[in-house]
């Protein structure tokens, strides 16, 4: 443990900053104290459990299949999370899980196929985890935006259908807006990196003593991985949502939100 870049007392000290945030929230009457404490505690428990699992998965001699099995669990849980956050869209969890799988195949396939990283437990699980976390956030953003657009613009969409447009054409302007909403934060993050902020992966590597240029190269690969996977996933989900939100007879389904 003495070789670890951060000791347990360091984690405890950083938790004091959460205490500061809670105190400020109470002073300003924001009512966010419970949420801040809950989120911080949850992160502690989840990351602690993840550490235990990764220790087992990454242990010497473990088969690589165990890592891929863990990736499958992450994809399933991410799909369930998307379903829970946007319950208005039936079948969204399954659709998201399929899209996450497609994105994992494409992006990890490129990284491992081009031998950017070797295929082993220490690369498969972290890269897949990083990718899945980002695409899950983008998918929730996309789905929420689509639900809102289809609720607010229901009249417009039905007017287009009534003019004889097929559902793919009638939905296109609204799906396009939702896709832009989901992709723009990722594009902005990519654009601002290195000038306005240092990304987490790079900070972690620098703190761990990795040479700056090596850290930059890893960070670039990670950012391109995330950008590519978010684009693939949101496109697949948007296509799937279109099929979910209309019947085969080009009728707009009623969501529970409506």
């Amino acid at each position: 443990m003495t070789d670890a870049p951060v000791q347990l007392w360091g984690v405890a000290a950083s938790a004091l900053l959460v205490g500061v945030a809670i105190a400020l929230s109470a002073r300003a009457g924001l009512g966010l104290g419970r949420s801040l404490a809950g989120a911080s505690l949850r992160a502690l428990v989840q990351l602690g459990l993840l550490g235990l699992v990764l220790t087992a998965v990454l242990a010497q001699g473990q088969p690589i299949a165990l890592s891929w099995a863990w990736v499958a669990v992450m994809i399933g849980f991410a799909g369930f999370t998307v379903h829970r956050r946007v319950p208005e869209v039936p079948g969204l969890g399954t659709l998201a899980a399929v899209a996450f799988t497609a994105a994992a195949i494409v992006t990890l396939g490129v990284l491992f196929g081009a031998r950017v990283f070797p295929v082993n437990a220490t690369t498969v699980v972290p890269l897949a985890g990083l990718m899945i976390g980002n695409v899950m956030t983008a998918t929730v953003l996309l789905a929420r935006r689509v639900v809102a657009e289809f609720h607010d613009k229901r009249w417009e969409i039905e007017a287009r259908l009534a003019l004889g447009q097929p559902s793919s054409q009638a939905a296109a302007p609204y799906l396009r807006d939702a896709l832009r909403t989901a992709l723009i934060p990722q594009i902005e993050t990519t654009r601002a990196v290195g000038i306005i902020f240092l990304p987490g992966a790079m900070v972690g590597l620098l703190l761990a003593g990795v040479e700056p240029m090596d850290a930059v190269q890893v960070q670039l690969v990670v950012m391109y991985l995330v950008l590519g996977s978010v684009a693939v996933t949101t496109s697949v989900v948007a296509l799937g949502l279109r099929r979910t939100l209309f019947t085969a007879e080009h009728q707009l389904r009623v969501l529970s939100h409506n």
Partner: protein
Amino acid sequence: MLRRPDPRPAASLPTADQTNAVFGFDEVGFSMRGKAILRDLSLEVPAWGVTAVAGPSGSGKSTLTRLCNRLIDATEGTVRFRGVDVRDLDVLALRRAVGMVFQRPTVFEGTAMQNLEVTGVHDRDLQRSALAEVGLDPDVFGEREAATLSGGESQRLCLARVLLMRPDVVVADEPTAALDQAAARQLEELVCSVSHRGVPVLWVTHDPEQVERIADHRVVMDNGTVVGFTRSDEDPAGSTDPANGAAP
């Protein structure tokens, strides 16, 4: 005279026939989330003139119109377009034949002319004729942003969009509900002139005075079904329509 644009699989649609009802509803029911909105509704909508459907809010009038172009499907019974079950027709061709004007004037992003592009009719002259037909001077309104139009102008643009497709029938769901009296009268006159040219109109309203002004045939709805039907036998276009109303 506007020419019908190249039809999609419109050949499968039944041809206009003054002797048949334009729409037939046979013991139609519609339920959503377990709630019955239409029940045991039977009606024959004459193939000429303006058929006004009146009734209190929640009586199922708007639902009736949405069945005509299959924005929704009946959960019971059969809806017919010129004698053919609408479920046997190509739904996109049916929607181009059944021109629909909604209660809320719904314009899309872009200019008035760009709104007409949505119909798939790209002929500039036809688009200008359609605007002129509804009293919107194409030189004045053609390049105006649709979002800047008044409620009455927007609704007339919606009617122009429908007329550009040369529909076999116009279905209007309380199209004057959001308009002032002058704009409402203007729209009534426009739609009546369309019916005088031989295009039947199904017009939903909650205004009894409007029924008096526009209706050739009168349907009264309440509690999800037809409770009254009066049809005129005088066809101003000169043809007779022996089909009789099947409503109770």
